[in-house]
């Protein structure tokens, strides 16, 4: 039969166990981001144009192909990289040339970036180039935005929806 002191020791041990489990399962709180700031996320998965134009095959070339594999054009798989730029209040937050994914470099170019900015009004410009042009951009989007503290603003690029989208 355990002594009263031993029982007391057990009670203390169980109490410490319970308090330890309960406390660390919730505390201390962790501040992951400054709650006074807002976040801008820029993300897309978009494919640039093919690096080389498709070439129309001649009648002779098509006729040499197996009947089940005949096609009118010969197209290279590789795509050009996508260049993107994000400017906030005249300052470039992000500028990158994103290579296409995949071994054959024929996949989409992907971006996923986040930036913390001060809450308040901002002028935002997003630009993207997905063509073979050497300079300039194919898409540009300008917006005046009002960001609240802790707000998450997502900027996405969807060519099928006309370019940049702000969520």
């Amino acid at each position, binding site marked *: 039969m355990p002594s009263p002191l031993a029982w007391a*020791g057990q009670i203390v041990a169980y109490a410490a166990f319970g308090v330890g489990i309960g406390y660390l399962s919730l505390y201390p709180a962790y501040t992951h981001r400054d709650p006074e700031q807002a976040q801008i996320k820029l993300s897309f998965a978009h494919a640039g144009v093919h690096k080389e134009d498709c070439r129309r095959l001649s009648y002779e070339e098509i006729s040499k192909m197996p009947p089940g594999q005949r096609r009118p054009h010969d197209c290279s798989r590789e795509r050009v990289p996508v260049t993107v730029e994000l400017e906030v209040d005249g300052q470039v937050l992000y500028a990158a040339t994103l290579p296409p994914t995949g071994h054959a470099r024929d996949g989409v170019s992907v971006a996923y970036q986040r930036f913390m900015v001060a809450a308040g009004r901002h002028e935002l410009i997003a630009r993207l180039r997905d063509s073979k042009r050497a300079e300039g951009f194919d898409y540009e989007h300008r917006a005046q935005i009002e960001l609240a503290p802790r707000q998450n603003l997502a900027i996405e690029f969807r060519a099928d929806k006309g370019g940049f989208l702000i969520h």
Partner: protein
Amino acid sequence: MGLKQRLRIAWERLESAFTRSFGPAWNPFFQLGALGWFFYWIVAVTGIYLFIFFDTGVTNAYQSLEEITHAQWWAGGVMRSLHRYASDALVVVMTLHMIREYLLDRLRGPRWLAWVTGVPMIWFVFIAGVTGYWLVWDMLAQYVAIVTTEWFDALSIFGEPIARNFLSPTHLSDRFFTLMVFAHIVVPLFLLLVMWIHILRMSDARINPPKGLAIGTGATLLVLSLVFPAVSQDPANLATVPATVQLDWYYLNLYPLFDYVPRPVMWVLTVGFSTFLLLLPWLPPRRRAAAALVDLGNCNGCARCAADCPFNAITMRPRSDSLPYEQEAVVENDLCVACGICAGACPTATPFRRRSALVPGIDLPQLPVRELRERTLAATAALAGPARVLVYGCAHGTRLTALQQPGVATVELSCIAALPPSFIDFVLSGGHADGVFLTGCREGDCHHRQGIEWTRQRLAGERDPFLRARVPRERVHSCWSGLARTTVAVRQLTAFRERLAALAPTERGVPAAREEAGHA
């Protein structure tokens, strides 16, 4: 004394403090593995209950949990709290179990399997925990989802970043959420499978804690659930940033590091540390002790060695020679830890044998029973004066050098249960010493799992081979003090010698009852 040895002694002292309150049978440090199983089952049962009421769609998950938590607080709420707190307790005992097995050097030899399977178990436990927090779909879940997917995106194995699923409220879909529900169910099942492999090499593995300890820990978690119920944080909203979150530090302790350490580096650290853990049983490499050897000419197939082996290393198979016994012992070398408990259990391992060579049916190459008899005789030959004591001790417990003093001789074994009880009879009836002092690991925590218990049962006449009834029990003392409590062993040895001094001394050379090993 090396750092690891110092840490081990400090650890044993901590455990000894718990032994004082809980006793050796209920000491939670001696039951960490069994407590892990216990908490796993609490998590499983409460999880099944919660799943019945949980809406697995991302849009309704939060609300369904709110209803479980508040509308039926007396059942669902308690179940949810128990689910969380038992999961946290599982991490605690798992971590302590790992540290303990490392410090007590219980990861080498055939124990590598238990150690190595423990590493994926850590991953499974954390994956199950993280996916569990994901399912609540509150601000913490949002934080966990974003940090986790961003971490996985660092691997560049997905066509497009999976973190894009949480870009904004319009991007949220059930697809990912359903995957997490699936993972939260399947991963614990894999965990259970690995837990089973984890204990595969143990005989009589402890998967249930003693009732008292189970009641104590279970009641603590229940009280905690009632007093401090687990609740959700604010609902997830991808239009806002989860700036401040209340983390479960048991599961999410690494997550703050993602704000400071690049994500690829986090992969290197976590995978690197896991690999390091996997290699620990062989770091630094040591020569493995030779496995026990069976001598068929002396093995009568009694199966006591197989019954006593703590690692299932001995199996009984049909006889392969012409001797008229049904079975023979076969040692699986890969499973043998060379503890010698089998030799201690062999009825032919008796030092009284004179007419035939002392070769038992099963023996340990590094300390054969014949060598043990020679060491016993050599150690006791020099003993003089009153209250002469022979100490038999194991290599993993009390340091025998600390017990050496005039009138005391020591003989070290790999495990105290490697000592056939007939040796005690041999020493006392032959007058080689006035008393026999047995020492080793701490009660409830034998390095070779069952050595102390088998010794106790053999001495009490509850387990073959028995200590003969003629042996005066007042001349035999057991002290299970472990490495850290050497002073306790010294104190008990002194008291034992004082008691012996009050008894009539045994006379050296008085012939012991002659007996030949009976193959029974």
